[in-house]
């Protein structure tokens, strides 16, 4: 094997990508196009169970996705980089040669469009955090009296989009989060910590707050019968429901292909409450400023405004197929990357009194469509969820299953949303870490349908 260049990623990955892309672009024939999409991360994962370390994993992972285009056809190939320029160039050139040869034998792709130069930009962000060795100690010590389970994740993520038309976008963000829950037998409270700067006092205060919630759960658990109950959904619970919009509901291509939970909203046969507004808000700064094709994301794209559907997410391929205008949704998946739900007028101090008698739900779990065409979804309550009577918490509940429609939850049943909003960064780590996240308030509902 060849010897590595010994590059310092902190400073040189961008230049490495320039050298590599130049090597590959120089080999292109006339009328051939090539784009390169980078996802790179140097991650430190520490998995906790019972406030101890179960597993620690450091990951150095650099994926490069080539999109080769010729004769109105295209093909994508994702490859792991070794960061040895000669070896990576040789391997990727072999990949391009193979694609070039194989593409000649298949039909033209109706979704083909010429690559554009969408500009040259760079954005760098960095959180301040202790070393991971220190963080392990801080978490273990702070929760030595508790049974904590969860994941600490830290390190830089880099994304770039380069193409043979001259485009070069680069984004780098060094972040951390601790996603955790603490347990007392079967009772659990959920916590989340992610800031631009790790602050010991702030972290200690959060630990106290979560431990206090756990003490509230010490009361006997109450069995609630299936039925309709007034509900307050805390921001984390609302986040679980809002994520279902990204499960093809706001995708225009899915809509055109027959998966249409928002059809009644689109046809104006049914509207959500005027209090409900949902926006793709890239100004939250939670994700890269460009999509996987290097198209710049709109700063704000209203999806639902005051209860009315304003936009589906439309990528360039969908726009071409259905003669629509693209709003630069991602080529891989038409979904919101940075979700913003408009706050309401409910003062947090008044949540319990406004709820009166009903369910206070901090978290939900495993939500899925139960009848997508009716926008009906099902899921479970999870972690700290309480029965409230006359504005007083009576005690934690045994978990309940709900089954209800988006038209009910965000329509006639929506009473108000809180003034206060919470922000959650995307914690998904399947195959690789994700960017993005959401900002949203809590929601008070007249009723929600519980079935089991």
């Amino acid at each position: 094997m060849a010897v590595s260049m010994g590059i310092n990623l902190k400073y040189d990955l961008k230049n490495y990508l320039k050298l590599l892309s130049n090597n590959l672009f120089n080999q292109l024939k006339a009328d051939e196009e090539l784009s390169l999409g980078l996802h790179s991360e140097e991650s430190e994962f520490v998995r906790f169970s019972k406030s101890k370390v179960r597993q620690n994993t450091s990951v150095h992972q650099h994926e490069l996705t080539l999109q080769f285009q010729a004769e109105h056809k295209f093909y994508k190939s994702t490859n792991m980089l070794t960061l040895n320029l000669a070896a990576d160039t040789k391997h990727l050139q072999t990949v391009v040669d193979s694609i070039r040869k194989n593409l000649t034998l298949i039909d033209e792709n109706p979704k083909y469009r010429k690559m554009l130069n969408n500009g040259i930009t760079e954005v760098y962000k960095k959180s301040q955090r202790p070393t991971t060795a220190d963080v392990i100690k801080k978490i273990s010590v702070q929760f030595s009296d508790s049974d904590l389970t969860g994941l600490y994740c830290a390190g830089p993520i880099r994304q770039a989009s380069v193409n043979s038309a001259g485009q070069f976008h680069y984004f780098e963000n060094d972040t951390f989060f601790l996603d955790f829950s603490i347990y007392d037998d079967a009772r659990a409270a959920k916590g989340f910590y992610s800031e631009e700067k790790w602050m010991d006092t702030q972290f200690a205060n959060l630990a106290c707050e979560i431990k206090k919630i756990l003490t509230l759960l010490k009361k006997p658990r109450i069995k609630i019968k299936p039925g309709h109950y007034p509900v307050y959904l805390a921001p984390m619970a609302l986040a679980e429901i809002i994520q279902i919009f990204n499960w093809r509901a706001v995708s225009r291509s899915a809509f055109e292909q027959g998966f249409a939970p928002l059809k009644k909203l689109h046809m104006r046969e049914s509207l959500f409450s005027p209090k409900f507004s949902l926006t793709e808000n890239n100004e939250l700064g939670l994700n890269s400023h460009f999509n996987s094709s290097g198209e710049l994301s709109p700063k704000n794209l209203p999806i639902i405004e005051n209860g009315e559907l304003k936009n589906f997410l439309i990528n360039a391929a969908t726009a071409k197929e259905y003669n629509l205008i693209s709003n630069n949704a991602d080529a891989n998946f038409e979904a919101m990357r940075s979700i913003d739900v408009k706050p309401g007028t409910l003062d947090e101090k008044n949540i319990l009194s406004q709820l009166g008698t009903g369910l206070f739900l901090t978290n939900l779990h495993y939500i899925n469509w139960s009848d997508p065409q009716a926008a009906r979804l099902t899921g479970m309550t999870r972690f700290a969820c309480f029965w409230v009577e006359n504005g007083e918490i009576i005690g934690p509940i045994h978990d309940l299953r709900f089954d209800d429609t988006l038209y009910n939850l965000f329509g006639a049943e929506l009473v108000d949303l809180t003034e206060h909003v919470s922000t959650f960064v995307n914690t998904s780590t399947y195959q690789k870490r994700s960017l993005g996240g959401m900002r949203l308030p809590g929601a008070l509902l007249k009723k929600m349908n519980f079935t089991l």
Partner: protein
Amino acid sequence: MQATSQATSQDAENISDQLTDFLQTEFNKYKDSADFVAFKLIKEKTRDYSVRNGKTEDLTEFNDQGLLIEIMISGHMGYGATGELTAEGIKKAFNKARAMTLAASRYGIFKFNKLIRPPVQGTYTSSRKINSDQLSLASIFDYLKKTSLALKKNDQIITAVSDVMLVECVQHYFSSEGTNFHQNFDIIVNALSATASQGKESQTRSLHGGRGNCVQAGAEFFNLDKALADCDEISTQALELLNAENCPAENCDLILSPDQMLLQIHESIGHPLELDRILGDERNFAGWSFVKPEDFGTLQYGSTQMNVVFDPTLVGELASYQFDETGNPAEKKYLIQNGKLVAGLGSLESQARCPISGVASARSSSWNRAPIDRMANINLEAGKLSLNEMISQVERGVMMYANRSWSIDDYRRKFQFGCEYAKLIENGKVTKTLKNPNYRGITVPFWNSLAALTKPDTIGTYGSPYCGKGEPSQIIRVGHSSPYALFKNIEVFGGG
């Protein structure tokens, strides 16, 4: 589908040999630098192609390659993963992993010994007649185009998708304890689906639900005549659903086909029996389990007809292997026998932490994740009835096919599942087609309501390429086989 004469297999073997030699040299530099050191190379090529309405939808491939380094210090196992397969990249990954492992070992949850990594040697290769790397893009595209066009029977079929995922995976593990095993997996996932639309109604029917049709096999898997017959049935049923009645809401008998049983087994048997869940490691993410350590050997999980095995030794099922990813040799084992819970899905690490009978189930999604307790092939054994005999026993019931919706609580008790297609059974006969069929229940009472199973020749073998779990999260491939199963007095309901 014709195999090409490309010499790709030989080329790949030569490259793999060079890589193996290089990694062995690198391993020798580090093998004495901790109490235990292991290297695991994963090299995996995935080709994922789809055609919609006869036209190209997606043509993608992923050439994944990387190294997982395992380091044990003071009884704590830590991991370093890198795609930088150079001397310097491996040095950086090793040093970082060792520093993190040293820091973490002071707060480790359990002091393991080296028995969690047995010194085994061996080789495994998926059963195949023709290597799938012999299939050219053109031949696959031709198959997808023909099947997609066959699905698009008329204009009411608005979306007709045929897709295939071909995976060729090489896994090579060697350790300072003398372990050295090599496993080659060839995997094929073939999905066909048709969405019919008329007015406000839209219904989708697919081949065994999403990507349930998946096996370990070579290029011989593809049979165009059979696929075209499947396309005809799928699109006919999608059209039939447009004018079908909603599934009624009532308590009645429920027959689940093997392609829904795969999901029922997965969610309400597989996950709750994972020992790392029972030990609490998954509580923040995938969830805990209603099963407690003291339930093994005592809990009547289901009726006496219920026999469930963990079996990665079966030829062709999706999650077959010779060793799990710690070198534990794979063997068939009963998890549930005559309805009683007898063993869990616990790796050697979980068995060290908790004295419960386990299996070879330490698996990871790739080189960048540590192994955790997973399912492999979890199968429900057959009964004695023919399907007609089973139907004739039902006075009033619903027979459901192919999963489309799944949700279960974090203890794996309360579930609600939905299917693509159903038939009403009245007085022992199938009478009409039903749309939007759903059912819900609670795991242990549900399995105790199991009344009958069909014969071995009715077993369907399927799986999922997408079982999610773990922090950091991992997707893994699992296999499930089952006969038709009859459950008594289940709550069913429709859509709307």
